[in-house]
């Protein structure tokens, strides 16, 4: 079936909710589908006990999810914009991440927080940010970023079948733009595994999130003689270090692309791992392509300049391939 990214996310969640009664879905406006229609149809299908409209109380919302998960449920807590996640940072860092440690393994915490970042949608500095490294820095959390209709369906399914606290981040920019073939069968995309999107010989491109879409476009724009080894990390934590090292060694020329702020980012960590494990096999210094260390501007023209587009990726690949 050919479906959009948002439809595939929803399918994954719906199928798991049908399968498992302990999954409840809570978030602001979720019964009406939310501002993007992400949870459309859930309320009609699963009713008021399992699909709950929350007050605008992110601390309360995440705390609720932690408690419900401690006591046998598998809550999906929707945080409408990634920019709202820091409101609940204390709950996430001290309780969600530490629950297993603090109970000395007596309790796992199968809580899934799902959110989206709206970079590229002219939402301004407080509704566009993407900062996964705030969370990958904390032990105990799974952090995954979806990027294709195929992987989002499988990542949601896997998130709801395992027992560790998980933050799933969707790039809203691709919700309706990225339409692709997705198998109808049941499948999971397991955490800790990167996805090789394209085999290539000249340059290794490692990325995740919205820039996977941009990278796929970039590959189409490149001259035929440059071949790119394109890897989508998908799961930022646990991180597939083996796949990163393998991909880096394959070409010796590595481009890491992400739409994070550059300082202390996942992209910079990936680069540091490559230096640590295969410095001697690099033919050129690693290139890290991110937006500048500036807040996301509202101005549609400026935002476009700020973002990592396929043109910028093409340019970086060609520089590395030289």
């Amino acid at each position, binding site marked *: 079936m050919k479906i959009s990214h948002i439809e595939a996310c929803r399918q994954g969640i719906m199928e798991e909710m049908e399968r498992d009664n302990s999954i*409840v879905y809570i978030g602001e406006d979720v019964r009406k589908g939310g501002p993007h229609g992400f949870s459309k149809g859930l309320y009609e299908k699963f009713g008021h*006990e399992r699909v*709950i409209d*929350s*007050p605008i*109380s*992110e*601390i*309360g*919302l*995440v*705390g*609720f*999810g*932690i*408690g*419900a*998960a*401690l*006591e*046998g*449920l598998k*809550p999906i807590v929707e945080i409408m914009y990634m920019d709202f996640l820091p409101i609940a940072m*204390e*709950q996430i860092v*001290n*309780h969600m991440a530490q*629950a*297993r*440690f*603090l*109970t*000395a*393994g*007596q*309790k796992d915490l199968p809580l899934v927080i799902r959110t989206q970042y709206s970079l590229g949608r002219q939402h301004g500095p407080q509704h566009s940010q993407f900062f996964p490294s705030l969370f990958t820095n904390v*032990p*105990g959390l799974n952090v995954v970023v979806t990027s294709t209709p195929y992987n989002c369906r499988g990542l949601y399914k896997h998130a709801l079948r395992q027992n560790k606290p998980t933050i799933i981040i969707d790039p809203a920019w691709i919700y309706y733009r990225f339409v692709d073939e997705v198998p109808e069968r049941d499948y999971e995309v397991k955490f800790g595994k990167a996805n090789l999107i394209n085999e290539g010989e000249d340059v290794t491109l490692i990325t995740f999130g919205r820039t996977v879409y941009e990278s796929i476009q970039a590959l189409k724009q490149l001259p035929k003689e440059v071949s790119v080894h394109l890897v989508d990390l998908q799961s930022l934590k646990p991180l597939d270090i083996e796949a990163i090292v393998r991909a880096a060694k394959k070409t010796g020329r590595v481009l890491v692309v992400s739409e994070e702020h550059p300082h202390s980012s996942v992209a910079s960590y990936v680069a540091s791992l490559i230096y640590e494990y295969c410095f001697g096999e690099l033919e050129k210094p690693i290139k890290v392509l991110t937006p500048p260390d500036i807040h996301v501007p509202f101005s549609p023209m400026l935002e476009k300049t700020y973002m990592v587009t396929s043109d910028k990726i093409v340019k970086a690949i060609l520089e590395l391939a030289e």
Partner: protein
Amino acid sequence: MKINVSHVSTPIKSEFDKLDLHENKLIDMLKTMVLIRAFEEKVEELYLKEGVLIGPAHLYFGSEAIAAGVKNFLQRGDLVISHHRGHGHAIMLGIEPSKLFAELLGFREGNLRGLGGSMHLPIDVSKGGLYASAIVGSQIPIAVGVAFSQKYRKTGHVTIVFLGDGATNTGAFAEGMVMASFLRVPLALICEDNKYAEFTRTADLFVDEDVVIQRFLSYNIPVLIVDGNDPLSVYKALKIYENELRSGKGPVAIVANTYRLKGHGVYDKAPYKPLGEVELYSRLKDPILTFANRLVNEGIITHDSLDAIFEEAKKSIEKAFEEAKKGSPLSIEELYFYV
């Protein structure tokens, strides 16, 4: 909805039947209080005199009656969510004192394998101690989720969450109240109002001394104000709420007025307290002395058996510590299992 503010007076013998009380329960309340006090006295000694224990510890001196009242209300399946001042809750739950000492020593034999320490001491899932937060107020929204699960799964059980007066100033309290009141969860919020938020008198932070009560009421959560130095008073309040709680009609709150007999942490000598305040409370309001005297006066217990209860508690605590001392810590490699 009905808003219920009333003061609960101490029950007398004639009320025993109505409250499902009998003499054994009263004696158990006393024993619980005495055991908590004996544990805390030993802990304090190990910190201050012997230096065997290190790191923060927030002692429960003065609040024993609250734990004892709650203990006798709890049924199997009910869950307790605690906070940083939770040693008394740990004893109340029946976690073996030897495990608690081992935990305070940082040993693998501790109930949390030495990973949690003092501020998470009342966690033992098998005993109903589900969670304890070291961050003031943060346990409240978590307790809402726990109680929601009990309601969703129609267990008929309730969640008890402890909080201090200081915690009502946090954002987590406010948002927890929003969620609790909106979801109508079977949650009893027990505010151990010990009059101090760390080094500051709570009253100095409030515009009105009834602020804590008003806060609950503003979220449509009924509240009872009880004498937190009297275990029967705490117990009776919970009994009044029991039907409402177990039938899923929603959250309730109890403000238990008590007094923190010690400093904020074990090392804090509390020089900021008014001269003579501690002495006054110790002499007139100490929950253990008051309750013990009442039991003697009402002929429920003799002086001799009273002495025996104190003696036995002290002995069992000494023995527990001797046993705990033999432990050893986990290795750093073993920690990955718990992440």
